[in-house]
């Protein structure tokens, strides 16, 4: 299986990138390290002269956008990881900063996620956000908020895509890649 959902250009076009690889089975990834990882990349890239959200964007806005989006992606990877490594890559592609967070999840988890991801891409994210929060309010015991990807789109104009791979020998796990693109590369 090699499935793509949403906006997911070929990784080999990313070129130069900064990456971090985590090994949760050997070195436990504490929850607060999600934010620390995101903040590392946010600090790194927001201080590059070539990065700027829009003409009037400040460095703080760029740093916040990177930090928010990447923190959500890494939190998801840590939350749903089913062994193996978690990799975080950040680079530039066309007019965007590109984040790719990859981790292994159970195939059954992918089956649950798949329709939600299609809904995110094909629906109106602002309407979906309203509906999701109202549903969460009606179900206080909901274990997940479901707002991570949605708020990336509604609040940060992120373009999202996913790639799900099931290589030989992976058993009932799949390699799950989340790509987020932020329009903050100023040419």
């Amino acid at each position: 299986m090699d499935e793509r959902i949403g906006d997911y250009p070929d990784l080999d076009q990313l070129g130069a990138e900064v990456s971090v690889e985590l090994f949760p089975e050997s070195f436990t990834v504490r929850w607060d390290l999600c934010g620390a990882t995101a903040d590392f990349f946010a600090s790194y890239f927001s201080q590059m002269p070539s990065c700027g959200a829009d003409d009037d964007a400040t460095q703080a806005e760029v740093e916040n956008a990177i930090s928010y989006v990447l923190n959500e992606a890494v939190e998801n990877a840590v939350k749903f990881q089913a062994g193996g490594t978690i990799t975080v890559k950040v680079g530039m592609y066309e007019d965007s900063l590109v984040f790719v967070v990859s981790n292994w999840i159970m195939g059954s988890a992918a089956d649950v996620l798949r329709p939600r991801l299609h809904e995110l891409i094909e629906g109106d994210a602002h309407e979906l956000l309203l509906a999701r929060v109202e549903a969460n309010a009606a179900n206080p015991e909901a274990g997940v908020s479901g707002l991570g990807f949605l708020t990336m789109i509604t609040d940060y104009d992120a373009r999202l895509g996913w790639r799900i791979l099931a290589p030989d020998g992976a058993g009932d796990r799949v390699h799950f890649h989340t790509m987020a693109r932020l329009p903050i590369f100023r040419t």
Partner: protein
Amino acid sequence: MEVRDATYRVWFDESSSTVFFEGSLRLGTADYRPISEILGEVLAKNLPVLTLHMLELNFLNSSGINTLYKFAIALRKQGITVVTVRGTTVIAWQTKSLANLKKFLPTITIEMQGDE
């Protein structure tokens, strides 16, 4: 009423009818429960006016945004409509995400320091 750890503090000040949020909130969904409990206690007071003070809240992840938006819905359903949220444009996430509160509680007043 107060809940805190190394990175955040949330508390209710009865005299000013204000909930203060301070620090960085990047908890897992279940870890917002103590904060939700404080907000539930505030809700139960049925206050005529309420202020949410966000000026020192540097980060809020999506689970925290969920907690905040759900509180806005609870206020709306309880008829507590004279609500003000105080934020700042200096903290970028607040500019991005606080405006959505109006979708869940249309009567809320959003005061952003740093606005012209």
